[in-house]
């Protein structure tokens, strides 16, 4: 008797398991997310993009009601992350923080295995980070106009965080917009470049706000302009480049949420709603401000249009400067 009972229980259990395994895919769609989501970041832990991704992911977990794990996949000029995300299953469990460099600049510079414009699906824009034009002790200028004037000598050099980084492109665009010729000194990361700016070995930089704000506040570096279309809350006295007399000059490092092409519509809309909720949290806003960014909520269509516009714009800058690799 007990034997038979056991067999029956086992059979019943098998039945339950079978039903569950058949039902599982359907249930997963209904109850997204039913397992942890991997959020790929194309940069090493501890950097600017990583900081923003972690602030975002921590609050997104609450909005979605499921785990979001940040996975750093640096490499190949940040193109590795793009490839990883493009190759993943479009089930909404692998997402990518898509930012300016790999999304719209690198396609003009590198031969890519995955095109972020066609192989990735925009979900929502997250944040916008203005850059700041700073000068060191080697240059006695007080305004952006004076910098442009001083640059007409053709002898000014600027540092960047590396070839094709946001700080390189920001300065390139400044040069092209203002019609000045300045020499580019690439560094490995913003840190060493800012170091040489403080030491007076290079003249100016167009760098991310967090990399310089401490030195600006202490008066070691002078901020001439922010490159966004609005002033930045932590630097209220610093004008925008347009206010400072370089019309049409805006450059920003922006961050958005993208996923592999072909995600289910419900998953996308759920992620978009969760992003909107995340970006309305006062604590998130505060932390983004620390990282030099302001939230910039955009839905999939608006974000896609924005990226297309950015891609065309930076393509012109890259072409004019001839920094193509291939």
């Amino acid at each position, binding site marked *: 008797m007990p034997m038979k009972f056991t067999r029956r229980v086992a059979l019943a259990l098998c039945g339950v398991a079978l039903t569950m395994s058949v039902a599982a895919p359907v249930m997963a769609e209904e109850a997204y997310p039913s397992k942890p989501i991997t959020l790929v970041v194309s940069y090493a832990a*501890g950097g600017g993009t990583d900081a923003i991704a972690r602030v975002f992911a921590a609050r997104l977990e609450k909005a979605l009601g499921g785990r979001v794990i940040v996975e750093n996949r640096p490499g190949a000029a940040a193109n590795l992350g793009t490839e990883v995300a493009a190759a993943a299953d479009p089930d909404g469990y692998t997402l990518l923080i898509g930012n300016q460099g790999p999304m719209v600049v690198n396609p003009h510079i590198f031969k890519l295995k995955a095109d972020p414009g066609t192989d990735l699906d925009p979900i929502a824009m997250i944040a916008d980070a203005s850059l700041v034009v700073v000068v060191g002790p080697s240059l006695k200028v007080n305004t952006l106009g004076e910098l442009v004037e001083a640059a007409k000598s053709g002898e000014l050099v600027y540092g960047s965080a590396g070839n094709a980084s946001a700080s390189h492109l920001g300065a390139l665009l400044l040069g092209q917009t203002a019609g000045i010729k300045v020499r580019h000194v690439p560094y490995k990361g913003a840190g060493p470049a800012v170091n040489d700016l403080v030491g007076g070995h290079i003249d100016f930089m167009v760098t991310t706000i967090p990399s310089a704000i*401490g030195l600006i506040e202490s008066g070691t570096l002078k901020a001439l302009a922010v490159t966004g279309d609005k002033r930045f809350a932590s630097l209220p006295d610093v004008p925008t480049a347009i206010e400072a007399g370089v019309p049409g000059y805006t450059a920003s490092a922006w961050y958005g949420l993208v996923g592999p092409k072909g995600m289910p519509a419900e998953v996308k809309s759920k992620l978009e709603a969760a992003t909107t909720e995340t970006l309305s949290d006062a604590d998130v806003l505060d932390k983004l401000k620390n990282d030099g960014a302001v939230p910039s909520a955009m839905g999939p269509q608006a974000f896609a249009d924005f990226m297309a516009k950015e891609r065309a714009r930076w393509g012109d800058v890259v072409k004019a400067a001839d920094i193509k690799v291939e």
Partner: protein
Amino acid sequence: MLDVFINLGLGMTVAFTLQNIALCFLGCLIGTLVGVLPGVGPVATIAILLPVTLSLDPTGSLIMLAGIYYGAQYGGSTTAILVNIPGEATAVVTAIDGHKMAQKGQAGLALGLAAIGSFFAGTVATIVIAALGVPMTRMGLLFGPTEYFSLMIMGLVFAVVLAHGSLLKAVSMILVGVLLSCVGADMETGRERMTFGLEMLQDGIEFVVLAMGIFGFGEIFKNLADPEARDVVRSRIGRLWPTLKELKDNFPAILRGTFLGSVLGVLPGNGAILGPFASYAVEKRISKRPQDFGHGAPAAVAGPESANNAGAQTSFIPLLTLGLPPNAVMALMVGAMMIQGIVPGPQVIERNPELFWGLIASMWIGNLMLVIINLPLIGLWVKLLRVPYRLLFPAIVCFCCIGLYSIANDAAQVMMAALFGIIGYALYKLEFEPAPLALGFVLGRLLEEKLRQSLIISGGSPLTFLQSPLSAILLAIAAMALVIAISPSMRRNRDEVFKEA
């Protein structure tokens, strides 16, 4: 000067709270462990723990993270001495003579000297940060690309003494190292060099991958191939504490190492990694018995270990005084500060004096703790070595792989290290020294970067290296050293030295 002590007093009151002592201890303990385990480094560890520190107060979290970093420098030497595998990339130099000492039955002495040297260096570096932080920062800022390049040239000229075999082989190893450092995207144009179209080479080769492959995996291959050589260290550790005479003999090396490490640690672009190499070169230069170097000279352990630890600590100076990170670990510390809402920069010292001075004071406490943690642990490490090789080696390989994978969550790094392991074994068989290769690799990268930056800044004029007084002096010293080295009398001496060795 009085100010310094008042400030350090404030720091002590912060660091001596129960919570901060516990966090400091925890950091040092994790650091020691990470240091002892080959491959697993402080960068990956701190990156993983970064989100955890959110729940701590800023001072406590920085005290703990700092402890992991300098703790790892301590622990890295243990593995280097006992199994000839540098636990940290910076312990490459320690392994050269440290392991030879261990084979001679002096493992205890080598570990003891490393610990005493590190503690002394840590204590001095703490005072240097507190008293000379601002002038040291100014000195560091004097080194622009031009001056840095000349410093590297000087380093390269002195580097030749690192070798203890054929001069030709040493020079070719340095050049191979320089060549390997050129792999990857060109810094200015982004074009790929020597990547063979492989994506894993596009960002160049990581120093940790090279060091773990050639020194770590290579050593394991060597041991497997040569079973007689490997039981030596297990047999006898010898006494831990040096005699008064040994201490007196090695104290000058510790002092010089501390000085070199402290100065180089402040330089941007990870100057701290140069400290041990510089110390080794200097000790060999001025030693009365240079032929002992490479065969277990105690000064070759005491000096570089002191330099290593001093550099690890003074690399906090640019971070604390300017908010500028000179290496990857400090970049993570910037991240840790920002998470806590503290803007790194010159104003930290005024706005958050308790954090600034508390962190500095904690470093001294941490160094004391490390001696207390490490000396009794040596017994434990040695017991671990008694584990049969068929279990020990797979375990070491396993930890190496975890560490290598954690660099960029990328299996390609592990494969690359395995390849370097085979190269390392081949080098050993052909009697090429791998240490000059490591140095060439470290210097090569900086050399190219700084040369090109200098020339862009100067508009292409190489005269810039003579126009900067500091750069001109460094080049003059290098030229002098070169002349002395190739002068006939010196060459005879050198050859004799090599014959003896």
